[in-house]
């Protein structure tokens, strides 16, 4: 069984993989361009586009069912020191998957510049969500029920 340390590491990795997959491809590209040094890497698995069947649950909590598929692109890279990174990103951008995999490997190597770049991507995501949530909040309503007829 994985120890506490291991699961914490996994949680951190899940977090950065989520940020990398959820960021627009152009932002990940800009983050890559912004790195002081871009490492050499080899494809362990060249970018490949396929699908994942998205599942839902009846009533939100009940029996699982197949809602429909989504396009996903995956990639695996190996850095010079043997570190292997994986990228699984929604959509069909091979470059996005490749860079997500490369950043994943850099993060596993505890690369500080990569960590700063991922943090910036996470902040951008948070800002996007806040902007959306603020627009949504402007449409919050209080309905008054109007009494019909007598009493």
């Amino acid at each position, binding site marked *: 069984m994985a120890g506490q340390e291991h699961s914490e590491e*996994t949680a951190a990795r*899940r977090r950065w*993989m*989520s940020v990398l*997959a*959820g960021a627009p491809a152009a932002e990940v590209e800009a983050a890559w361009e912004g790195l002081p040094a871009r490492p050499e890497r080899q494809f362990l698995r060249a970018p*490949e*586009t*396929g*699908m*994942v*069947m*998205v*599942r*839902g*649950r*009846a*009533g*939100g*909590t*009940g*029996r*699982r*069912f*197949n*809602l*429909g*598929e*989504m*396009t*996903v692109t*995956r990639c*695996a890279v190996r850095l010079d020191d043997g570190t292997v990174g*994986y990228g*699984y*990103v*929604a*959509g*069909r951008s091979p470059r996005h998957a490749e860079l997500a995999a490369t950043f994943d490997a850099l993060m596993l190597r505890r690369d500080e510049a990569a960590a700063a770049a991922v943090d910036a991507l996470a902040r951008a995501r948070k800002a996007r*969500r*806040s*902007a*959306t*949530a*603020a*627009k*949504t*909040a*402007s*449409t*919050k*309503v*209080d*309905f008054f*029920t109007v009494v019909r007829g007598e009493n």
Partner: protein
Amino acid sequence: MYVAVKGGEKAILNSHRLIEDERRGDRGIPELSIAQIDEQLGLAVDRVMTEGSLYDRRLAALAIKQAQGDLIEAIFLLRAYRTTLPRFGASVPIDTGRMQVRRRISATYKDIPGGQVLGPTYDYTHRLLDFGLMDDEAERCQAVSAPAEVDAAMPRVTDLLGRDGLIEEETAEPDETPIADLTRDPLTFPAERPLRLQNLARGDEGFLLGLGYSTQRGYGRNHPFVGEIRLGEVAVEFVPEELGFPIELGEITVTECQMVNQFKGSKTKPAQFTRGYGLTFGHCERKAMSMALVDRALRCRELDEDATAPAQDEEFVMMHSDNVEASGFVQHLKLPHYVDFQAELVMVRSMRAAAGAKEAAE
């Protein structure tokens, strides 16, 4: 039955060129871009993704452009494309309770934790043509941003009812239970609810709307309330074999409708509301509601109700809900049926001749 024919290659090729030419239309008018369709005809994109059963905005937009806005043709194109891609696996079921909500309304409770949030909706518009949109250079108004954001996660209204046991519980089955998939195996009946929901999720909006409406008009009445409709973004998680733990692939937009329906009880069980469920890709509210109505109607067997109406007949509903199949079979009537028709012609002629001879004899 239709027959194979040869020839006509040149006419077919020229017909392709003609439709390409017509699709482009007046060359004096700028061509539509895929990004424009995605951004400005977003609800059409949502419908094509839902019924095409493939979440990919740009591909759906491309299909709409290629089909000149014929959405059923676009759905067909998307379905055909998906057969060219490998499937990596299935996602962890999405958790709509953790949705970043952009719209959330309830017709059963006025005050709900998190509040009623209208979001982007045509519900309260006057349905008057806006001639301001004729001017494509005009400034468009910007959304208002409230100082405080909406709650990060809002409880489902049906979960609130569930706490008091007032609505039937939706319980998950063990994770190892296999899930029927109509893209892998042909439909068989009776169908379990997961298979029905998959069929309804990709089913034709118009067909399901009509069926849902029929239940309201008395053909399988079940007295529905909109417990909740929510629209927003949910993360999709997937467990890659090489990693062994779930990772997020990104977010998708979904619409969920929880229909709360007339109660059901017995001597041993106190009365409870029953459920109908709708879930779609993107913002497809009419579809999600229709799906929820039909889902509830199709549950008649498990709820011991008489199945008397079309919306309660699962074979009728599921065999006719798919617009790609329906369109294919209806439109195949355009293919050459010369041999069949010749046979019928001979038959009609002989019947007429026989009738004529009888008349002459009398």
